[in-house]
């Protein structure tokens, strides 16, 4: 059923003027991404290498990286599992109010993150609706890493659902039926037929939610409690350095954050392409 385009077709492309489109793409990417990032680099060039290293590896800075990366990873993982479930329900079942349910997934995108942070804190603080329920059980939600993870789960969930959903939609139900007629159990069908198809978009969704979580500021400052060495996130430290008019120090921390995230995303991407290859 697949349609192979002829050679001349692919060479000519659908859009006209390769030179023009490519030039515009590069210009746009430079204006929006590359130039701001190099300005970041430039800001930290006031530092010597030793100074940069001592700022970036200060115990308090290291603790904040730990908090940022661990909570973002935890939130990404939870979102990956629950997001798959949400997407599954949205694609495979019909129920009243499905359209509204579907639209609600995108709300965390639209909401200013600070608003999310304030309302989550109101809910989960020890005097809030949910917090007062958890507190007697000895679970501290707001002002702990758990609270940060909750906030990051909230802002990360649309990424997973929206990357998994279209793939699930395209998945042919006939393949599953074929697996069933060949005698595969439901678990086996899921594991060997559905999951391999879903793994790449799941990884992408995780990577998106994870990287969004690392840099998240607005929703987290309210719920984290901001205690140094315990619940202080890296973006807050950057703000605190800016408050001291220490531009170079702030960009040093930011640069380090950027480098680690970039390395991690690269890792996830290569993992993803390997998964895609074995799936074929």
């Amino acid at each position, binding site marked *: 059923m697949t349609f192979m385009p002829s050679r001349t077709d692919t060479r000519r492309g659908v859009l006209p003027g390769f030179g023009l489109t490519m030039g515009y793409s590069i210009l746009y990417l430079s204006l929006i991404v590359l130039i701001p990032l190099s300005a970041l680099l430039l800001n930290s060039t006031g530092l010597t290498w030793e100074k940069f290293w001592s700022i970036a590896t200060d115990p308090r800075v290291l603790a904040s990286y730990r908090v940022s990366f661990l909570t973002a990873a935890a939130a990404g993982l939870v979102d990956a599992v629950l997001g798959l479930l949400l997407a599954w329900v949205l694609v495979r079942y019909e129920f009243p109010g499905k359209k509204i349910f579907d639209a609600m997934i995108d709300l965390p995108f639209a909401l200013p993150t600070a608003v999310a942070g304030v309302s989550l804190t109101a809910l989960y603080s020890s005097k809030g609706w949910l917090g007062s329920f958890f507190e007697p059980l000895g679970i501290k939600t707001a002002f702990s890493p758990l609270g940060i993870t909750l906030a990051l789960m909230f802002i990360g969930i649309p990424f997973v659902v929206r990357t998994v959903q279209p793939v699930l939609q395209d998945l042919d139900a006939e393949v599953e039926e074929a697996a069933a007629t060949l005698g595969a159990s439901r678990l086996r069908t899921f594991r060997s037929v559905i999951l391999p198809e879903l793994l790449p978009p799941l990884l992408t969704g995780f990577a998106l939610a994870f990287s969004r979580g690392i840099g998240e500021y607005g929703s987290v400052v309210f719920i984290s*409690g901001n205690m140094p060495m315990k619940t202080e996130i890296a973006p807050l430290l950057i703000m605190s350095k800016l408050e001291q008019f*220490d531009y170079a120090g702030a960009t040093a921390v930011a640069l380090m954050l950027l480098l680690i995230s970039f390395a991690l995303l690269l890792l996830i991407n290569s993992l993803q392409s390997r998964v895609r290859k074995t799936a074929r």
Partner: protein
Amino acid sequence: MSKWVKQSILVSLVLAMSVALVACGGDKANDKASATAGADGGKGKSVQLLNVSYDPTRELYESYNKAFATYWEREKGQKVTIQQSHGGSGKQARAVIDGLEADVVTLALGYDIDSVQESGLINEGWQQKYEHNSSPYTSTIVFLVRKGNPKGIKDWDDLIKDGVEVITPNPQTSGGARWNYLAAWSYALHHNNNDEAKAQEFVKQLFEHVPVLDSGARGATTTFVERGLGDVLLAWENEAWLAVKELGPDKFDIIYPSESILAEPPVAVVDKIVDKKGTREVAEAYLKYLYTEEGQTIAAENYYRPTLDSVKEKFKDQFPDIKLYTIDEVFGGWTVAQPKHFNDGGIFSQIYVPK
């Protein structure tokens, strides 16, 4: 693909590009417009000022700007409109350094204006230009407690008693919170024969009683007032009065400790900008008018302590007399206090790093 499809794609690409270009150029066009408006404002019919201030002065300057506009029109026959910009004090200073064209800055601490001066926008000696260290109104740090003061908090010592939770923002991210910290420090210093080590120990213990470090003053007020966390909120006197007024006097009490710090939020004209825009005369008048009877009354009505004796007398019931130390007396000014206490590696950050 038919020819007109190709052409329409090309046309839309060109359109997208020109939209992007216009968007880039838009800012410049705006800048020019406001600059010319300012330039002929010096002699012409109307003039615009931008006052870059910090968060809790919003209400104060709303009423003051009206009063000043009336005064200026009566005096010079010139219309003046004043735009206000509010935000965290340090953030506002950075905006001015990075190019926000403020005619005057009215910030929470001298250190922030010092930083604007270092960037060359303000001439040296700005703090001697107006009376009282260029602080037309002052304030201090007081305690806001729950109605009836259930934990019996009377003075700074009571804050480090067992079971007392103190709410204050982080001094490293909030300019206002630095006054809280310095007030506690100066109290401990005076009660321990000026022993710095003991003062540091006291402040360290105090911050062990802080369950949440909000990043800004309004956030800390929310934590205390709305979330019901903590037993005492360290707050600016004017913020405490506002909270009591807004939320009903049946919920909170204001406690005045035996001594506190004299918070001096200073004002300055941004010399480079007013010279460029030709607004020096009106900008200077704008700040001077803060010291007049009317300006002082407006400040007092917004719970800032007036510095003019006649207005002080009128509002003496609102501002109880307590011992107030200035930052110059105890700490030798902001340029000494800031790096020693609040910069990275300073005393505040040492409090949290395990040895």
